[in-house]
């Protein structure tokens, strides 16, 4: 296996002997991929980023960069650059000087600086903006300057701290494409911090989902979306219907008062579990053809689809995303395939979860 570019080994971080912000975090980051640290505010994702950047030291545990321990290496000695949430541009310098700052600090010859700055500006589609003042630029343009200022130094890892959160929706979507494309063109490892699951799913090669100072699950966007490890991940990433159920035996699960065929294996018989069904996997049909009989409560037009809230006989709430319309108050049937059901055990560790999945997927 290739040596990871960054690895965290049992890292714990406490501020002022309070509750730890990070509780024993270990992970590895490979070169050239787009990683996302995803979690709600206060989950420790920014703390991890600051530790990679060198603004914060772990209380316990070690951080390695290309195999070298870097716990005490200061920020200005690391081959890592950051794009800050508020961009942190230098307001008293123009665009050119902002971008050239890192190169000038490294004492590069003038013509090289000039060439690199021009290249970086072209890369973020701001060629010709050299002499602009920072205050004369819009939010999206500042964002690009901040990215150019970081990548011009050719870091091995680029850290992005919720860089899109200050942009409006449309611009955000555009920047998602651009960032992804930029990462693929440069081949630099990106570590992206966000609380926005859509951003994470759209851009990443690999997502780390964090909660309360722990990495709850890591994997590709598809893995995490389709096979969330627990209630928290299922709820945080995308919309989901989560129900309590019982695993009767392999490939047979009971919930909402009925037994359904599914594809999950490796659990004890009659083990209590949680079941996830994504709203878009549920199809509307008539009462006879449905696997489940539900009563339509409300219907909301979302543009791309209708969001329909229904209740089954046992009082469980079901959210359905569909392009079909339904009438509130009527009884309809819900249809889903065995593959649409995802069963989660309580308190399963990520290793056990992965091992169990591998045991029956092949």
């Amino acid at each position, binding site marked *: 296996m290739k040596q990871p570019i960054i690895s965290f080994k049992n890292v714990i971080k406490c501020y002022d002997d309070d509750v730890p912000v990070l509780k024993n975090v270990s992970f590895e980051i490979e070169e050239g991929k787009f990683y996302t640290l995803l979690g709600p505010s206060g989950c420790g994702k920014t703390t991890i980023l600051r530790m990679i950047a060198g*603004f914060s030291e772990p209380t316990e545990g070690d951080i390695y960069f290309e195999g070298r321990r870097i716990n005490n290496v200061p920020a200005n000695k690391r081959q*890592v650059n950051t794009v800050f949430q*508020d961009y942190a541009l*230098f307001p008293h310098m123009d665009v050119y000087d902002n971008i050239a700052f890192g190169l000038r*600090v490294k004492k590069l010859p003038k013509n090289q600086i000039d060439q690199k700055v021009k290249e970086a500006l072209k890369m973020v589609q701001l060629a010709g903006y050299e002499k602009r*003042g920072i205050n004369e630029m819009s939010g999206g343009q500042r964002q690009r300057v901040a990215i150019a200022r970081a990548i011009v130094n050719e870091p091995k890892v680029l850290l992005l701290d919720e860089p899109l959160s200050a942009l409006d929706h449309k611009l955000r979507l555009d920047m998602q494409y651009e960032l992804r494309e930029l990462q693929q063109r440069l081949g630099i490892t990106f570590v992206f911090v966000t609380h926005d699951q859509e951003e994470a799913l759209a851009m990443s090669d690999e997502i780390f989902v964090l909660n309360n100072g722990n990495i709850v699950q890591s994997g590709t966007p598809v893995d995490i979306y389709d096979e969330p490890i627990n209630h928290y991940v299922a709820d945080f990433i995308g919309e989901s219907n989560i129900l309590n159920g019982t695993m009767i035996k392999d490939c047979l699960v009971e919930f909402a008062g009925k037994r359904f065929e599914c594809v999950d294996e490796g659990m004890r018989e009659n083990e209590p579990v949680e079941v996830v069904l994504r709203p878009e996997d549920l199809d509307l049909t008539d009462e006879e053809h449905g696997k489940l009989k539900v009563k339509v409560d409300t219907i909301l037009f979302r543009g791309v689809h209708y969001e329909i809230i229904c209740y089954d006989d046992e009082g469980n709430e079901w959210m359905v995303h569909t392009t079909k319309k339904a009438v509130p108050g009527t009884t309809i049937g819900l249809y889903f395939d065995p593959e649409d059901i995802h069963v989660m055990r309580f308190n399963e560790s990520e290793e056990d979860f992965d091992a169990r999945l591998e045991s029956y997927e092949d």
Partner: protein
Amino acid sequence: MEKKHNFSWDKLYLAVVFVFLYVPIVYLLAYSFNKGDTMNSFTGFSMRHFAELFSDTRLIVILLETFMLAFLSALIATAVGTFGALSIYYVKKRQQRMALLSLNNILMVSPDVIIGASFLILFTTIGSLVGGIGLGFWTVLLSHVAFSIPIVVLMVLPKLQEMNESMVSAAYDLGANNFQVLKDIILPFLTPGIIAGYFMAFTYSLDDFAVTFFVTGNGFTTLAVEIYSRARRGVSLEINALSTLVFLFALVLVVGYYYISKDNKSKKKSERRQKGGVMR
């Protein structure tokens, strides 16, 4: 045209206040052009008091020394005060920081007389212990620096609090060392506050009387002290002439300040306009 009907009480109030504030000054200035030797009656226009003033080398030397003192003390105080503000800002514990800031502010509000007297005691004690410190230029300079530092701190700190902390992080992130961060990022950002602090310190030094009066000795005196000692002997109109010049100087400063700030404002306005344009 409703020019005749725009009387209102608030305008009258303003007018009265300003008249009260300016009449004594105008009175003083007007008599600098008096032909006679006293302020009892205006006997005719003449510039002879100005001529007297310019031939009074003692007074001119004192004037220059006063400016020199203000220039130097403001310079030193600005340097010390700026770094003082920085170190207060970077004190981690909130309580400690507030305590330091309060100590700074106490110096600002405590009466000059107390500061002057305490410096006098300090200098004479040191003088009697070590010897070699005569009261004069150096003692005045030191005490002016001392009472100017809190002013500078107070002018620089708000600018520091305005500063975006992640801007400093960004500079470290880009590879800058402590010195480069200070020189290229923090100090340029603080410059408006530092300049304001310098000018405040300059004017405080220029018109200080009480502290200087305590800590100066033979052979060195500032304008304020000199005018005071002359006034006790009866004000000669030469002082009026000097006041006229100093007043004009202040006027030039104010007008200059007005144009500088107007310039900045219009720059900001055009920035805003451009921003609006981009957003559109």
